[in-house]
């Protein structure tokens, strides 16, 4: 197998709100743009497109936004490739080489500049029973509702739990889909005075927030505020969920724990983390801020990272939502094109709007601070790494014996060496290290390695051959 070749001025990784805005801005400036996305349709997570014509989500604003953004980028001349998963990126003379699994075939994309808008993923925190089938991410539940028939496939009660404003959006998706939601378990209840303060500063967001509250009521769920899930119970699948109220110091009061039985689906989420595999592989500098979802790519106001020619946009720069994503995408796309000599439009307006949008996101993050430690102490035999079946006890032993960084824990225990490359266990390992007294910024992160996503070996070989040709040609 040899790799297909594509050559462009600006490659954009990710066709969500940020990537599509970047692709459009760069293409409008006259650059040849290729925009790659692993999913079957553009839109990313926020603007994911339904697969069923009669989906209750077909006429929603995010779906329309995704469709319009993809059309605008296409009309500007950007080439959008879906089903195209980037599994490696390298600096080569004159730019970058991206290795892509394009629907099972190797594709090498050569670009003079690169905009990474890889988005975010849920930040999974392990808790007792979290590997039982039926326990899924809150985002996974939303994805099923939005892209499937609109009914969750598992029988039994449905529980939505965790922390953060995204849970309200998922509850809204339940209401929209007409899917029954039985219990809503929320760690925090922000003080009304604090909520009022945020919306006094951002009144444009008030209608959306009010609708979220109404839709949660419409979902019919029993609401457990100031509670958390302390255990998922079952033998070969989820059967029951244990919840407990939180004390003033944020610890679950186990004496007042209760069980919800007959549960088929527990959708649980503790916020989001930026997807940084490609930017870490390219050796860009990253910073840690809990309110931004933890480790994120460092960039200046234009989206320029610490690697020449590499730009970042959207959640790769820190969790902020769709509005900052679109604005930062436009800014980075225009910046990348301008640096290559194209006359990109002025983005001063977008830069000002981005400041305001980020301020709202950060105010929201303060209302719902993402938990940094493990929500519940893990028994020794509970798994932290699902790929390699590495337990909390294995990891505690490694830390006690001197593994004081994520990378050391990985080499010691294999946690993070499986196909997820630490994307799923990273937050759990960081929390275990934090518990042992190693703060997140010292624990660092595991730099991604080849391949970023599992891919058949012939594709890796073909793509590496193409990369070597770019690296060594005269």
């Amino acid at each position, binding site marked *: 197998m040899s790799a297909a070749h594509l050559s462009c001025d600006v490659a954009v990784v990710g066709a969500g709100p940020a990537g599509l805005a970047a692709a459009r801005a760069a293409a409008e400036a006259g650059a040849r743009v290729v925009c790659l996305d*692993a*999913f*079957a349709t553009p839109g990313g*997570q926020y603007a994911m497109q339904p*697969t*069923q*014509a*009669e989906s209750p989500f077909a006429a929603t604003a995010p779906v329309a936004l995704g469709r319009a953004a993809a059309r605008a980028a296409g009309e500007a001349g950007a080439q959008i490739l879906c089903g195209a*998963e980037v599994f490696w990126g390298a600096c080569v003379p004159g730019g970058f080489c991206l290795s892509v699994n394009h629907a*099972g075939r190797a594709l090498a994309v050569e670009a003079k500049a690169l905009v990474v808008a890889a988005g975010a*993923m*849920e930040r*999974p925190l392990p808790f007792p029973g979290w*590997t039982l*089938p*039926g*326990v*899924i*991410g809150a*985002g*996974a*539940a939303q*994805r*099923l509702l939005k*892209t*499937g*028939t609109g009914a969750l*496939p*598992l029988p039994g009660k449905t529980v939505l739990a965790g922390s953060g404003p995204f849970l309200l959006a998922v509850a809204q998706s339940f209401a929209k889909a007409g899917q029954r939601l039985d219990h809503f378990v929320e760690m925090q209840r922000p003080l009304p005075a604090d909520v009022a303060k945020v919306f006094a500063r951002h009144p444009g967001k008030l209608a959306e927030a009010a609708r979220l509250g109404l839709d949660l009521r419409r979902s019919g769920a029993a609401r457990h505020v100031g509670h958390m899930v302390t255990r998922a119970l079952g033998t*070969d*699948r*989820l059967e029951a969920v244990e919840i407990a109220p939180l004390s003033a110091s944020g610890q679950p009061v186990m004496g007042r724990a209760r069980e919800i039985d007959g549960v*088929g689906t527990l959708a649980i989420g503790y916020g989001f983390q930026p*997807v940084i595999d490609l930017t870490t592989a390219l050796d860009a500098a990253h910073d840690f801020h809990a309110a931004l979802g933890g480790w994120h790519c460092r960039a200046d106001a234009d989206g320029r990272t610490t690697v020449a020619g590499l730009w970042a946009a959207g959640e790769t720069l820190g969790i902020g939502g769709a509005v900052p994503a679109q604005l930062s995408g436009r800014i980075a796309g225009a910046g990348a094109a301008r640096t290559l000599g194209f006359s990109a439009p002025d983005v001063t307006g977008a830069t000002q709007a981005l400041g305001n949008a980020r301020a709202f996101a950060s105010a929201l993050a303060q209302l719902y601070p993402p938990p940094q430690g493990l929500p519940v102490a893990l028994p020794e035999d509970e798994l932290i790494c*699902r*790929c*390699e*079946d590495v337990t909390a006890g294995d990891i505690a032993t490694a830390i006690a014996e001197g593994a004081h960084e994520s990378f050391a824990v990985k080499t010691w225990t294999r946690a993070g060496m*499986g*196909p*997820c490359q630490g*994307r*799923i266990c990273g937050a759990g390992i960081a929390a275990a290290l934090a518990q042992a007294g190693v703060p997140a910024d010292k624990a660092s992160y595991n730099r991604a390695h080849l*391949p970023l*996503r*599992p*891919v*058949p*070996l012939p594709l890796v070989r073909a793509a590496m051959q193409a990369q070597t040709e770019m690296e060594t040609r005269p």
Partner: protein
Amino acid sequence: MSEVEILLDGAPVTCAEGLPLTEVLMARAPFWRQSPRQGAPRGMFCGMGLCFECVVVVDGAWSRACLERTRAGMSVRTDQPEDRP
């Protein structure tokens, strides 16, 4: 909604076209894989292509069920060792 027939571990199953394959698999059972060392049952977790818990074999090739869309005639196997890279 147009319906298609797919082969699920050799047995024909009728479902809507274009659905996330995970929806069809979960309607049968919440798990279809075993974890590597403990052999514990596993099913879809992240639903967005990053955790690799929902891996199946589609038309002979390793694939994440959450990224697959149902299409006429596709053969999905969960009962064979994964050809995991």
